[in-house]
């Protein structure tokens, strides 16, 4: 696998909505490349026909009845809101992307 550049790291950071300082970007570019090189070893393993495991619990059809349980009050729901008005969370202007 080719090395990730600082631009690559910047675009990945955008995908997870996180700006990075110049210095952080530089450190993380180095570190992520070291990790990627390290995990490269796995790609050489033969895993043909092996089922991937995403959860060790073998239970299936875990459901609940369609019953209403108490919600938080609006005051509780917004208690930790950084900015709250009219029982809503206030966010800066949303620009559609």
């Amino acid at each position, binding site marked *: 696998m080719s090395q990730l550049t600082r631009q690559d790291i910047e675009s990945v950071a955008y995908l997870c909505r996180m700006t990075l300082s110049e210095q952080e970007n530089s450190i993380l570019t180095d570190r992520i490349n070291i990790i990627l090189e390290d995990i490269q070893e796995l790609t050489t393993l033969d895993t043909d026909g092996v089922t991937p495991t995403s959860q060790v619990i073998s239970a299936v059809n875990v459901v*609940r009845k369609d019953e209403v349980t108490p919600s938080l009050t609006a005051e509780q729901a917004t208690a930790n809101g950084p900015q709250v008005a009219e029982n809503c969370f206030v*966010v800066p202007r*949303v620009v559609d992307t």
Partner: protein
Amino acid sequence: MVEYEPVIGMEVHVELLTKSKMFCGCEVAFGGAPNTRCCPGCLGLPGGLPVVNEKAVELMTKAALALHCEIAPRTIFHRKNYFYPDLAKNYQVSQFDKPLGENGYVEILAGGKPKKIAVRRVHMEEDTGKLLHVEGNRSLVDFNRSGMALMEIVTMNPPPPGFDQIESAEEAREYLQRLRQILLYLEVSDCRMEEGSMRCEPNISIKPKGQTKLGTKTEIKNLNSFRAVYMGVDFELKRQEKVLREGGKVVQETRRWDDDRGVTASMRSKEHAEEYRYYPDPDLSPMLFDEEYVGRIQAQIPELPLDRLRRFMADYGIS
């Protein structure tokens, strides 16, 4: 002069008539005071976890069967990752490569002639919260709708042999009305477009008649009535044709329907292909549907309106 033919795909979202939300026990209702029907789960607070609403799965299975879909013997939930202020966890629990239902159809009457509009998939997901846009440089977010059970129904373009696709604004509206009729009849959803319990995002492209390669498509948002669906699709078809006839190019973008002005307007072009980074949600176990279950749900489906009409016609020798 080149003649163009339209290719119209429909992505429909329907909120289900459950008492509680898809993955938590918060009440499902329309309107009301903001953030009064939320819990750590649907509010995306640290440590909130999802548990599947049995009734929601039942209703969606019923709908998928009524749309003649094959029910997956095993279906799983995925995390669909994207950031938006109304998306509490910044990922939506949805389905990806193993949806609940696949390969169905909706029968419509196009100019009196029956057409089987191919349905590619029916899948389960959760709704987002709502942004209430207010004056000035801010928005308010209400999470009452967050986590409500949502069913997505997507048509298949091009359709497989023996099936059809939507090819006009009339057919788009007819498709949606038939779908609504079925879902109302099954009591799966109240399908109120004005309240948003049925939402439709058509994607539209045109291509020179006979050409197999599809044209560039646009997607229309903010269609809150059947009339708007008709008008919006019709406007967009004419707009695209005009662009092409004038030697221009259709840009891949999302366009917003402006009901007052009767036009679609560009929201923002999709420069990057969406990267949702789907992967199986480890908080939710797989759902297995055996023949017994599917049979039981199938048995609950009453004779559908169009089937009944057809039976009457046959019984009384009307054609």
